[in-house]
C-alpha cells in the first residue's frame, strides 16, 4: 500500500516538474484567466454592494393600494386597532409586527377572507396588538398605527403599511413614510397624529402589548389567539396557515 502511495507521489512530482517545463504556456494562460476572473469577481462584488447601498427604501409619495384598502374596510366599524362590530361575540387577536414580512403575507392573503366572511357580518372582530419584536423601527411603526387608531383609521393604517412594507431594517420607516401612510389611510388630523404617535402614552402602550405577548408565551409574529363564549379566556392559536383555519377557530369559539 505504502509502495503504491510512494509511486503515486513520485509520479505526481514528476508530472509537476514536467508541467513546469512542458506546459508552461498552457499554465500561464490558465493562470492569466484565473487572475482575470478574480478581477472580474472583485468588480462584480463591489458593484453589487455599491448598487445595494445607494438604492432601497420605499417611495413615500407613491403608496400602493390606498383606494383598494379604503374600499375593503369601508362600512366596517373600527375603534383603536379593533376592526368589526364591538358587540361581536368572538374576538380574534393578532399579535403582529409591522416590519414582519410574514405578517404582511397574512394581511395581504389570509385576513381579507376572514374579514369578508366573519367580520363584515358581525360574527367576529379582529384586534391587532403590536408585538414589535424586530426592534426600534417596529416600535415606531406600532405607535404610528395606534395614533391612527385614535382617529378611527387604525386598520386602514395597518393594511396600508403592510401593503407598502419595505425591506426590514432598511431605513424606509422614516417620518415621511409614516406620514404618507397616515394620509393614505385617511387620518384626518395629521398634526394630532404626529403629536400622539410620539407621546409617552403610546410608547407605553406599545411596551405593554409587547409584555402581554411575552406573558402569553408567544415567540413570533404573527401569532393569533381567539376569545369567545366557548373559550376559556384567551385561547392561543399560534400561527394558523390558512384563512380556513382561522375561520374554523372563530366558529368554534362562538
Amino acid at each position: 500500500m505504502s509502495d503504491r502511495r510512494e509511486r503515486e507521489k513520485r509520479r505526481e512530482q514528476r508530472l509537476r516538474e514536467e508541467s513546469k517545463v512542458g506546459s508552461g504556456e498552457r499554465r500561464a494562460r490558465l493562470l492569466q484567466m484565473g487572475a482575470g476572473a478574480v478581477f472580474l469577481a472583485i468588480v462584480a462584488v463591489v458593484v453589487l454592494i455599491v448598487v445595494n447601498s445607494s438604492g432601497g427604501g420605499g417611495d413615500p409619495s407613491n403608496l400602493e393600494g390606498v383606494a383598494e384598502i379604503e374600499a375593503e374596510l369601508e362600512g366596517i366599524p373600527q375603534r383603536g386597532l379593533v376592526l368589526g362590530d364591538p358587540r361581536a361575540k368572538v374576538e380574534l387577536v393578532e399579535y403582529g409586527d409591522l416590519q414582519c414580512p410574514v405578517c404582511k403575507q397574512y394581511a395581504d392573503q389570509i385576513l381579507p377572507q376572514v374579514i369578508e366572511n366573519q367580520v363584515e357580518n358581525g360574527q367576529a372582530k379582529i384586534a391587532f396588538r403590536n408585538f414589535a419584536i424586530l426592534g426600534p423601527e417596529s416600535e415606531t411603526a406600532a405607535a404610528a398605527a395606534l395614533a391612527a387608531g385614535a382617529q378611527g383609521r387604525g386598520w386602514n393604517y395597518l393594511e396600508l403599511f403592510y401593503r407598502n412594507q419595505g425591506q426590514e431594517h432598511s431605513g424606509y420607516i422614516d417620518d415621511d413614510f409614516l406620514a404618507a401612510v397616515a394620509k393614505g389611510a385617511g387620518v384626518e388630523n395629521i398634526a394630532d397624529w404626529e403629536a400622539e404617535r410620539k407621546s409617552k402614552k403610546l410608547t407605553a402602550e406599545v411596551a405593554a402589548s409587547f409584555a402581554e405577548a411575552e406573558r402569553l408565551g408567544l415567540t413570533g409574529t404573527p401569532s393569533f389567539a381567539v376569545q369567545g363564549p366557548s373559550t376559556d379566556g384567551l385561547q392561543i392559536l399560534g400561527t394558523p396557515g390558512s384563512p380556513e383555519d382561522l375561520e374554523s377557530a372563530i366558529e368554534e369559539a362562538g
Partner: protein
Amino acid sequence: MKFPTEGNLRRVIAFVAALGIGVATYIAIADSGGGAPACLAGGGGCEAVANSSYSHIAGVNIAIFGIVGYAILLLTAFFVNDLARFAGFATALGGFGFSVYLTYLEIYTIEAICQWCVASAVLMTILFLLNATRLIGYAGTIPGQLQEER
C-alpha cells in the same frame, strides 16, 4: 514548503463540497416549508435572513444556487484535467464572491446573521482557497495521466 498533492487537494475539496451540499440543502428545505413560517423573536437571524427579499433570486431560493455550486465543485474534484481545475476555481471564486456579498447584506442591510449562511460562506471560502491552490499548483500538468486509483 511542501506542496499538497493534487490527490489530497481533490479529496479535501470533495469532502468540503459534500458538507456544503448538506448545509445548502438544509437551508433550502428549512425555507421551503414545514409548518407555517413565522418571524421569531430573539436569535431569529435565520428567519430575518430567510424572509428578506435577498433570499430569492427570480423566485429561486439562493440556497438552490448554493447546492448547484457545491455540486459542480464536487464534480470537478473527480476529474484531473485543466478544465476541471479551472471550472473548480471559477465556480469557487463565484461562490466566494457571492458569499462576500451575502455576508455584507446580512451585516449591513438585513442586520441579522444566520449561522447556516455563515457556515456556507466559511465552506465556500475554504473551497476557494483549495481550488486556487489546485489551479496554481497544477494548472498545465498533462491531463489524463493522473487518473488516480481508488
